[in-house]
């Protein structure tokens, strides 16, 4: 119990529960399966990006360029779908987008590792390079009108229920993909040497190096994994809105970072968990959805999110300070 109280995730979980109760009291529509499935589907994109970001943050880096990577991957598959869409299937789409993501993520890792340029600077530069070149080549054109099988896949449900009004709803296949990614990532971080070595590297690069971990391998892995998630995210985005626009994702980097940080990952590396990240995304999702259900004007959304982030990081900073304070007293005794 005491161990539970020391974890950041517990507090985020309590916040999620409290918010859910408040929203449900004001508008019972919130706590319905229909709304829940809907929320899960529409936040799969942010959730996918957030998982990739978690890996990068744990290793002590940061990646700003993932929105641009996703845009490049999304645009490529959109062009392919429009031209040779009949010869493709959904696996190939994910494979192509994922490969592009991995390639661009790997490029980030090489620049960061070989030339020792801080990750934030490298990825700001590559964000501009990827996004700038893509927009020049495509002239900013929107792409839509994908093959019917692509649209059908987006509306596939694992099981279907009917609401009181007879509207069908259910667990979307997109949500299932996201949950699958969550489990793989959780397993990787928790039970593999690779995952544990990311924590070691984020805690202290030099110690990790002395302990014999392959730093370049780890760096290459986290940025490629972030790229893979960006690629998969781009397909999810294309499935959700059935349109690919060069400017629909770039500019949303900070929202994803905020969600991951809300879930307890620190920007100095070495901490963070998949469960926390999911809770962070959940908190942002239910607040966005809850404010609408509580009839709060949408304009207030950012004010509330900003306050929640400040309170969350403030509380965790305060707790860290207190525990450091306690340690000093014990040492003095």
């Amino acid at each position: 119990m005491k161990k539970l109280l020391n974890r950041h995730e517990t507090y985020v979980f309590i916040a999620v529960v409290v918010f859910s109760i408040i929203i449900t009291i004001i508008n019972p529509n919130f706590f319905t399966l229909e709304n829940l499935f809907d929320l899960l589907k529409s936040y799969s994109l942010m959730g996918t990006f957030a998982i990739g970001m978690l890996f990068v943050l744990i290793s002590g880096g940061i990646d700003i360029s993932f929105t641009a990577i996703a845009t490049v991957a999304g645009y490529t598959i959109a062009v392919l779908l429009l031209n040779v869409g009949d010869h493709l299937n959904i696996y190939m789409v994910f494979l192509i987008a994922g490969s592009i993501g991995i390639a661009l993520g790997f490029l980030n890792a090489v620049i960061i590792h070989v030339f020792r340029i801080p990750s934030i600077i490298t990825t700001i530069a590559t964000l501009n390079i990827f996004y700038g070149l893509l927009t020049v080549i495509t002239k900013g054109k929107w792409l839509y009108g994908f093959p019917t099988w692509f649209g059908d896949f987006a509306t596939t449900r694992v099981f279907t229920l009917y609401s009181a009004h007879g509207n069908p709803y259910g667990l979307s296949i997109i949500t299932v993909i996201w949950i699958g990614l969550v489990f793989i990532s959780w397993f990787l971080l928790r039970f593999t040497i690779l995952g544990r070595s990311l924590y070691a590297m984020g805690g202290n690069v030099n110690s990790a190096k002395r302990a014999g971990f392959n730093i370049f391998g780890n760096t290459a892995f986290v940025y490629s994994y972030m790229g893979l998630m960006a690629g998969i995210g781009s397909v999810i985005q294309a499935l959700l809105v059935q349109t690919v626009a060069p400017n629909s994702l770039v500019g949303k980097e900070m929202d994803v970072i905020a969600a991951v940080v809300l879930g307890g990952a620190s920007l100095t590396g070495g901490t963070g968990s998949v469960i926390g990240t999911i809770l962070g995304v959940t908190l942002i999702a239910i607040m966005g959805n809850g404010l609408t259900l509580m009839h709060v004007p949408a304009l207030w959304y950012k004010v509330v999110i900003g306050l929640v982030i400040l309170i969350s990081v403030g509380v965790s900073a305060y707790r860290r300070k207190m525990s450091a304070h306690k340690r000093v007293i014990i040492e003095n005794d």
Partner: protein
Amino acid sequence: MFRKLSHFSILLIVMVAAILIMWGLTGTDFMSLGNFQSMAYQLPELGVLTLAMMIAMLTSGINLSIIATANLSGIVMALILTKTFPPESALINSPWLVVGAILTGLLVAIIVGLINGFLIAVLDISPILATLGMMILLGGVSLVLTDGYVISGFSPTMLAIGNKDWLGIPVPMIIFLACAGFMSLILNKTPLGTRIYMFGSNPVACFYSGVNNKVVLFRTYIISGIFSGIAAIIMISRFNSAKADYGESYLLLTILAAVLGGVSAAGGFGKVSGLIISLVILQMISSGLNLMGISNFFTLALWGIVLIFVMIVKYVIDIRAQKRWNA
């Protein structure tokens, strides 16, 4: 030879190269007075915002809320300029209203700086998180204040700030140079400047040498806020309007410009002179490509490439210097 090449000299070489390449590619248009004047109108916005980012980066922090601060302070100025008196009243065109609006806007920016300072210095929140939260919060406050609409239509006095020149030098440029001079003065000639560099290199050592770190952080973020407020004056006057989400793409560009100018992301290093050269390089590329009719997005890509190029050159030189030292 190689060991003596500082970041500043690399930048100078890149700048000369940029000028020559752009001159060669665009012909005489590039070296015309008109082109230089239009560059001098465009550079200050990003320039003042970069100063706001730079001072935070010198303390090994970062200020992600500069654009949000500038927009909020610009919106407050715009509201005072357009809503305090009915449009038919003579007072709405009074220069004193402009002075009042600017002072109130700057006060808002200072208050934001104070809050940032409080979050970072007193609550010990890491700067990137505190200012990220503030960025989202202030963006929200601006949206609520404006209902998401544009506020436009300012008096001629206000518009003169962004669009007139004095002895051929555009007013925004004069404001930017004054800000850069002020910043250089603080960093090089005052105890605060020394403390900012010391804090950026090693906060613990700085603390044990008797510096009140909290005060240094407070002042840093207040100055950063003031520069954001000054950028707001230039922005609303040049656009003749204010809105909650103007200039959001500037945020990452200010970091790019600061780092290109030699400001270390780890804190403690960076000079105003390097920053000015870096801004000139970026503006040269932008204007040159613009004259050739090439898309702005290509400029973005080229800026990114130049940044990585300069960082790689710097790395190679560092490695060589280290090898020589060891040998």
